[in-house]
């Protein structure tokens, strides 16, 4: 009975995190973008600096008519947002925020592997949307999404493997237990490659060619309205939370801080995740969109060789210090 309660409690916490953190990132993006561009951003909803803007957006989305184009593949079209969203919920389960056993949803032994595999499913949602819409913009967006996934999944896999090599385990808490501060300079190239590749998988600017609004309307999401569109947006921001959390636990030492991991470990994890989320927003405001071929080129001619080099470096250092 206690076990069942414990599991229910964990699932509840994960679910609440899944529903709130993406909104916090979204609201932060509204405000940070606004201030970086010399605007105020939302100021009215909720009173204090427009804190309830996204709640208001949610209410608006829920009341909008749900239009499925007559030419679309109805079932697939309707299911796509769920397929895009749910993998990120599952990934949250495997990310530990503190050193104790209570500070992770569930210790999954093949954690890194699980996380990468499940995250890969999310893009299927965009593909389903792109194909089922029976819309030329959507189809183009879907194809670009597929190409982008193919290009950037690889450096992500390779750099994650580099961390697994350094730690000698694929369990995420295991990796964090093995973490030492000098892993930061040792794995820094891998960290940057992983983060950039993750950004590209989320189709965030500057890697937002698949949803380039000035060119192909909104890519795979062109035909979506109301709640289903909102779920796609939620998936994007949940993706940011997951990517930043993963980069934190794999490369930045998660709960390890300058003054040891006792007691306040979870604060370090959240702080690092928040800083990374800020960087994601910052990049969006700063960089122009990469053209489709530049996007492919960046991955194949820069990120993949860099991640191969990182693996070589990790292997040599690990064997030498062993």
């Amino acid at each position: 009975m206690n076990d069942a309660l414990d599991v229910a409690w964990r699932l509840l916490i994960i679910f609440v995190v899944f529903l709130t953190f993406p909104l916090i990132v979204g609201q932060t993006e509204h405000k940070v973008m606004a201030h970086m561009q010399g605007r105020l951003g939302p100021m009215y909803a909720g009173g204090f600096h427009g804190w309830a803007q996204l709640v208001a957006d949610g209410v608006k989305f829920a009341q909008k008519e749900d239009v499925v184009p007559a030419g679309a593949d109805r079932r697939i079209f309707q299911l796509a947002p769920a397929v895009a969203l749910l993998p990120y919920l599952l990934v949250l389960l495997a990310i530990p925020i503190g050193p104790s056993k209570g500070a992770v949803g569930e210790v999954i032994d093949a954690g890194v592997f699980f996380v990468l595999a499940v995250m890969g499913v999310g893009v299927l949602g965009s593909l389903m949307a792109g194909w089922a819409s029976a819309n030329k913009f959507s189809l183009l967006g879907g194809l670009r999404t597929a190409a982008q996934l193919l290009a950037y999944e690889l450096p992500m896999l390779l750099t994650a493997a580099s961390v697994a090599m350094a730690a000698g385990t694929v369990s995420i808490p295991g990796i964090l237990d093995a973490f030492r501060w000098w892993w930061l300079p040792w794995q820094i190239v891998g960290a940057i490659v992983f983060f950039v590749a993750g950004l590209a998988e989320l189709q965030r600017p500057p890697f937002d060619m698949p949803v380039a609004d000035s060119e192909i309307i909104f890519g795979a999401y062109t035909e979506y309205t109301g709640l289903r569109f909102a779920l796609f947006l939620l998936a994007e921001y949940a993706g940011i939370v997951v990517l930043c959390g993963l980069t934190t636990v794999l490369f930045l030492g998660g709960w390890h801080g300058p003054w040891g991991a006792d007691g306040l470990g979870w604060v370090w994890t959240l702080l690092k995740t928040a800083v990374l989320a800020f960087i994601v927003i910052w990049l969006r405001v700063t960089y122009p969109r990469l053209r489709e071929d530049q996007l492919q080129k960046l991955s194949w001619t820069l990120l993949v060789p860099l991640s191969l080099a990182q693996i070589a470096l990790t292997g040599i250092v690990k064997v030498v210090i062993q």
Partner: protein
Amino acid sequence: MPEPTVVESTAVNATVVAADYFQSYSVVGLLAVVGVLFVAVAFGAGRLLRPVVPTPEKLLTYECGVDPVGEGWAHTQVRYYVYAFLYVIFAVDSIFLFPWATVFAAPGYGATTLVEMFIFLGFLAVGLLYAYKKGVLAWT
């Protein structure tokens, strides 16, 4: 090797038997059920909240306001298929890095596995170089 874990230092999995091993995935399954319920409830509630007033114009495929030409499942030049080939070659190989990563520095392996690693990386690098020389990584 059937042992899923090689870390002795983690207190988390001291001894692992198959039943315990898959128990963690049953929680994953539960969370998936929670997720599916969430989506079902959201869609169900949305159905109650939103208006339904379809018109033929509204259900037209969006094409910047003009009537759609041809159909959406159209022929298009797929420039990306070469990348798909490249990906298949690389990704299938990369998967094998993970089990290898957990044991390659174990006592008695060191130098041998390191040489193996460089052979592996060499293959990948040559493949990439070949693709680059063939010009498939550039469009113009």
